[in-house]
């Protein structure tokens, strides 16, 4: 199916609450590091892909046009793609189209988000994700939909909040080994549950922070990839799906859009039994329950079964199927699109054995990254392997 496509370099900034850098400066930092890592210069790049979520964060209309200078877009084919929070994992899929189609041989893929510019608080931007005519008048915030979804997930399966809190504990622990991390640390389930309730059942320590940051990869078709590095990491399968915008007409207990996207990617990768054929996962974890919800959508846990596996240590870095070995959004931080791209970077580093103290000790052949977004409706999935 199309040309084989690999990731051959990765770069990342620190994730911080407020960056001094402008958005183009952040984009350049990650992109130039990815190029260096791939042993390439901008002249070697055929096309540039930018992934970034709402314009309301960075505070520039058509913000990817503004970001193109820092992303390497000068004089090159340049497009910006977005699928809300799913963007960071979608950007390499968008890049895959450029390369697998045979149209281009190399691509620089940059994701950036600077949320701190948005005042009085980046959360304010989220009121405008709701339907302007039938929902916004209620004064909704982003926490509502997460809380509504988490509560539905818990009530359908009879899941307890302490089971969910454990995802925060695990990811903040994992993030301690990540040099970009904003809020890694050692926590207990009790501390998570003792943190302030923002929107029942969501506690403060179950929520990823707002962040500024950027992450980037260089991708190439097979002949270039092999010429450039002895360790290309291949995109074996990609999948993406978008559910209806009428989110109050869906049952939120299960992310069927993630399942759809996952099977699209698995079929492309020739995966029939995901739990046996995938060594580790980077599911999207902006909120603690989302990691569990998404592991189920990814077919890596039975419906409603992820909390028990988590409690059993199955998803720990030394478990059967490590999940969020990076530390995830809960630990490393959540500059929306850049956070998804951070997961792609983590697959790249883990599969090359370059993850340092985060390195999973068992042999790794294949990992999956996933992101999610919009009104709980986007699934984006990338399977990468050595």
């Amino acid at each position, binding site marked *: 199916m199309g040309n084989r496509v690999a990731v051959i370099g*990765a*770069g*990342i*900034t*620190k994730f*911080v*609450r*407020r*960056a*001094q*850098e402008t958005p183009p*400066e*952040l984009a350049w*930092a990650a992109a*130039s*590091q990815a190029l260096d*890592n791939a042993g390439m210069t901008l002249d070697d790049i055929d096309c540039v892909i930018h992934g970034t979520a709402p314009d309301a964060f960075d*505070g520039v209309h058509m913000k990817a046009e503004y970001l193109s200078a820092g992303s390497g877009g000068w004089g090159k084919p340049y497009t910006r793609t977005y699928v809300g929070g799913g963007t960071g994992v979608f950007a390499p899929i968008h890049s895959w189209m450029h390369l697998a189609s045979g149209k281009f041989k190399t691509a620089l893929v940059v994701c950036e988000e600077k949320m*701190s510019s948005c*005042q*009085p*608080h980046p*959360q*304010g931007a989220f009121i405008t994700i*709701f*339907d*302007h*005519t*039938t*929902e916004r*008048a*209620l*004064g909704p*915030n982003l*926490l*509502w939909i997460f*809380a*509504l*979804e988490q*509560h*539905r997930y818990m*009530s359908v399966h009879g899941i307890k909040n302490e089971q969910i809190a454990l995802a925060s504990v695990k990811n903040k622990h994992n993030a301690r080994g990540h*040099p*970009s991390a904003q809020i890694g640390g050692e926590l207990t389930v009790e501390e998570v549950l003792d943190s*302030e*309730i*923002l*929107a*029942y*059942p969501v506690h403060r320590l179950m929520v990823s922070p707002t962040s500024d*940051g*950027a992450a980037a990869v260089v991708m190439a078709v097979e002949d270039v990839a092999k010429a450039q590095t002895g360790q290309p990491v291949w995109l074996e399968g990609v999948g993406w799906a978008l559910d*209806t915008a*009428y989110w*109050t*007409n869906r*049952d*939120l207990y299960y992310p069927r859009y993630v399942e759809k996207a996952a099977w699209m990617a698995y079929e492309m990768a020739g995966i029939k039994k995901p739990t046996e054929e995938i060594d580790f996962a980077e599911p999207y974890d902006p909120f603690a329950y989302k990691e569990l919800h998404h592991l189920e959508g990814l077919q890596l846990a039975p419906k409603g079964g992820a909390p028990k596996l988590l409690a059993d240590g199955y998803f720990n870095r030394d478990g059967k199927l490590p999940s969020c070995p990076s530390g995830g959004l809960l630990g490393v931080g959540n500059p929306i699109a850049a956070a998804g791209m951070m997961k792609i970077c983590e697959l790249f*580093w883990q599969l090359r054995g370059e*993850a340092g103290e985060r390195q999973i000790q068992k042999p790794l052949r294949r990992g999956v990254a996933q992101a999610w977004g919009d009104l709980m409706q986007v699934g984006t999935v990338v399977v990468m392997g050595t």
Partner: protein
Amino acid sequence: MKEPKLGTGLSSRDFFESGRFFTVSYEVRAEYAWDTGPAIGRYLEELKAGRIMGRRCTKCNRVFVPPRAFCELCFRPADDWVPLEDTGTINTFSRCYITWDMQKLTSPEIPAVIEIDGATPGHGIMHMIGGVDPDEIKVGMKVKAVWKPESEREGAITDIKYWKPVS
């Protein structure tokens, strides 16, 4: 992986108070008048009259709310208007202690997805629960709309003040 490149953290003081870092503050005038179209236009008009209206697709036999001009699954114009009840069931809810701009609330707002009676099961809208001790609310509770007085309604989703549990 190498050490991350840049990402220079500023403290809140650096950013807001010190005056050491130059910043530009800006507000955009981003104002809109979104055409409602026939489906949402009538939905709002009927809310003003104290009624919730759904639409039916006779092909898949769904009755959906919010109403739409077309069935997004069968991809054909929807067929007729269906008056729905102003009662329903709580599908899921939250107790939220902060506002949309992150101001703290002492008494929580209770957003919920409410499945509307008369619509196809599972088809609901987002709205608020009220008139009840927040700790008493349960998934599956029956609720009824509490409308604003007719004179205060303006053809908006907020013409319903909130939904109150009924025993």
